[in-house]
């Protein structure tokens, strides 16, 4: 580990699975914490099953899993067995943080609820990320990413009003919990340094998702106004949209923030007449003619390359970007090349993972590959519990570890 990483003195025992939870502990791992995943060979983390190279499929070759678990270790335990749970009880005192994103009650069933963990380590920090939270009439509701996007209002307020509220193509709330949760765990660690006390933190994914809304909820709570679905339009900026460009499914996003940018756009389009029109000098006036304006902009962009028209617009100070897809980003953006980390995995597969989207003291964080399932079981049991060869063999034979 790089010596100046801020979390290098901390250890996390990580029961998280799927994406939302593991992305939390990935931030902690990338910032230097020793994060040990507790995995199961009987109840495989589903994320291990996504996105494999065509030629290879194994429990270790999932690309999405790589992206959620860099820098961690993995131990494989069959938690349905009492002996496996005993091993965890013995491990816990060596750890500062225990994390999970199970439905409420699962950790308690294993004897790993907060009060039980506190018996094992009084200053433990326990962080859980259930979908609905552990209290409330719907606490047992189950959901995966799409469902949380629907619950929290993002789907209900996205898109064109005449189309079904399909939400996002991404399971977006899986990717927004992580920074907030990591921040709260780091803050709890800092507090423990000062007070000697641990704590239990819970973030309901539903509530965290609601904070992704802009002012739609507040507007309703304050004045009873329900914001309409606006497609790509903005109540404050006109024009504000996504316009066709030359090529297959190529688009440019353009946002005009003020009258100067409006006039600059008109001149770029070769339409000084529009720039001079008195009724289009403010947003209200342009909104009255929004269909007409959008048609003019679309006709202008339709024959142009998305990157070239973006350059033109940006050189005139107008916010614009091609609507980039993953291929554009991976192969066409020199700026993000050091954000992407390539490595050859022990399975022989070459992976690209994303680093954290921030630099640290001018450097990228050191990011290493995600663990193979159970890769560190023996190492961890030897190191923390002092188990010997025979004991480990016995545990394997009994199916306690894998």
């Amino acid at each position, binding site marked *: 580990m790089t010596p100046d990483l801020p979390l290098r003195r901390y250890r996390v025992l990580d029961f998280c699975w799927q994406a939302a939870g593991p992305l939390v502990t990935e931030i902690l791992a990338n910032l230097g914490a020793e994060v040990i995943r507790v995995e199961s060979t009987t109840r495989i983390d589903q994320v291990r099953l996504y*996105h494999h*190279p065509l030629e290879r499929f194994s429990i270790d070759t999932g690309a999405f899993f790589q992206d959620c678990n860099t820098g961690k270790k993995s131990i494989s335990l069959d938690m349905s067995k009492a002996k496996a749970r005993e091993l965890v009880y013995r491990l816990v005192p060596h750890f500062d943080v225990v994390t999970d994103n199970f439905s409420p009650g699962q950790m308690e069933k294993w004897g790993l609820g907060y009060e039980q963990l506190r018996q094992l380590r009084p200053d433990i920090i326990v962080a859980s990320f259930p979908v609905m939270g552990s209290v409330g009439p719907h606490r047992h509701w189950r959901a995966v990413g799409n469902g949380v996007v629907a619950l929290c209002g993002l789907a209900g307020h996205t898109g064109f009003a005449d189309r079904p509220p*399909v939400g996002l193509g991404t399971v977006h709330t899986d990717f927004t919990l992580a920074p907030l949760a990591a921040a*709260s765990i780091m803050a709890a660690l800092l*507090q423990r340094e000062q007070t000697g006390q641990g704590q239990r933190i819970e973030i309901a994914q539903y509530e965290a998702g609601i904070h992704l809304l802009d002012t739609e909820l507040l507007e309703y709570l304050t004045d009873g106004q329900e914001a309409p679905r606006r497609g790509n339009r903005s109540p404050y900026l006109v024009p504000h949209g996504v316009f066709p460009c030359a090529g297959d499914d190529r688009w440019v996003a353009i946002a005009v923030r003020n009258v100067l940018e409006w006039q600059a756009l008109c001149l770029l389009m070769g339409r000084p007449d529009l720039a001079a029109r008195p009724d289009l000098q403010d947003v209200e006036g342009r909104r009255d003619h929004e269909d007409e304006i959008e048609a003019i902009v679309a006709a202008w962009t339709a024959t142009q390359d998305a990157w070239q028209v973006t350059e033109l617009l940006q050189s005139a100070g107008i916010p614009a970007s091609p609507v980039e897809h*993953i291929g554009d980003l991976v192969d066409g953006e020199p700026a993000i090349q050091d954000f992407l980390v390539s490595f050859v995995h022990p399975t022989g597969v070459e992976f*690209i993972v994303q680093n954290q989207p921030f630099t640290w*003291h001018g450097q990228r964080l050191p990011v290493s590959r995600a663990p193979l399932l159970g890769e560190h079981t023996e190492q961890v049991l030897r190191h923390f519990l002092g188990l010997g060869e025979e004991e480990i063999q016995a545990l394997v034979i009994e199916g306690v570890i894998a």
Partner: protein
Amino acid sequence: MVNPPLHGVKVLDLGDEATALAARFLAELGAEVVRAEAMTGDRLRRRGPFVGGRPGLERSLPHLLYNAGKRSLALALDTADAWELLDRITTAVDVVIAPLEKSPLAHRFFAEDRLAAVHPQVGVVDAVFRRDRPEQQVTDLVAVAAGGLLYCNGFPDRPPERPAGNLAYKQLSLVACAAAVALIVSRRLEGRGGRAVVGLQEAVMSTIIQAANQNLWRWQGAIARRAGLLGLEYPVLGQGRVALIRSGRTTYQCQDGLWVSFSIWPPRWGNFLQWLEEVTGSTELMAECWQDPVYRTVHRDKIEAAVAQLCAALPRDEVVRRGQELGLLVLPVNTVADIAADPHLEARGFYRDVWHPALGRHIRLPRSAIRSSAFEAELRPAPRLGEHTREVLLELAGLTETDVAALLERGVAATLAGQEEGEIDP
């Protein structure tokens, strides 16, 4: 209950619309956040919607939401004098948060070499749109386009659809918040400052690793394309293969016209069949071949048609209630009206009524999503413009009453004194 975890931590928030939420989250964790803003009110205060539909610097909902719990220091940010004051304040704080869009004076203030030389002990969270072209102009729409998120959303016969919520700026703020706490830990435990620079384009890209994973592109040339109700399609090329994979439909309309997100958790497939038969009488999917998950994936259009038929026969709340009872992943597609009336959130005490003196009324705010056994996050109102100017200059800038009076006189700073509810000059 003890103090919140960042009690005693001081943050100087120079964030703009793109980064302001970062410091709000820090305030919720207990940090003392000073928001330095222009005496004329910052852009957040000028953006609607406004309380009661009437514009005013204290009436902006973005301000009330994103600046809750902060203190307001009103300065003439277009003068070098104001930035000298900010340098004095910086010596007394743990972390400074930069705006994404910087004025020339802000640009000079946040210059890496300068800050590292003058304030080596302070943490700095900066933000940039495209790392190689920091001068480019950006809005949230432009950022979701640049980071690959926009391309994944919408219907194939329409342009890509912008997600609600300013999600690019949200991700930037969330990452900035995490980076800020990491810097605070570093400073408090090791006495060192440092700098984290969050990339907006990268932050957006970090949200597409499932939908449009970079390895699928590299290995198979697969690009996730928006397919409306059908989710995403992946035309997969390469190695002599051409295939079309899609992610699957999850959005369905119910009898009452409302919508649900409906996914079948594979271990509960049998429960779904039983429910389908109860409601529609259909037993078609009970044939042996449908027990095979791969067969189900290949023939998912038949399953989707059955789910559509089931949902169309029942009102939404019943679809959700029974679906959850059966262990299926069925959730309402909520609007804000549903969220405002949700008994689950009500029972959890998710809302807090916060008194706003400038408005003479309570504003109902969603409270922090962070719950702790050790503390209760305090939800305080967003500040009035310049409400804390005097105390911040005395406490953090180390000035005397005489100094402050002189600054007010010279128009470098402004306080609330004598100020009525601020109206926006057209």
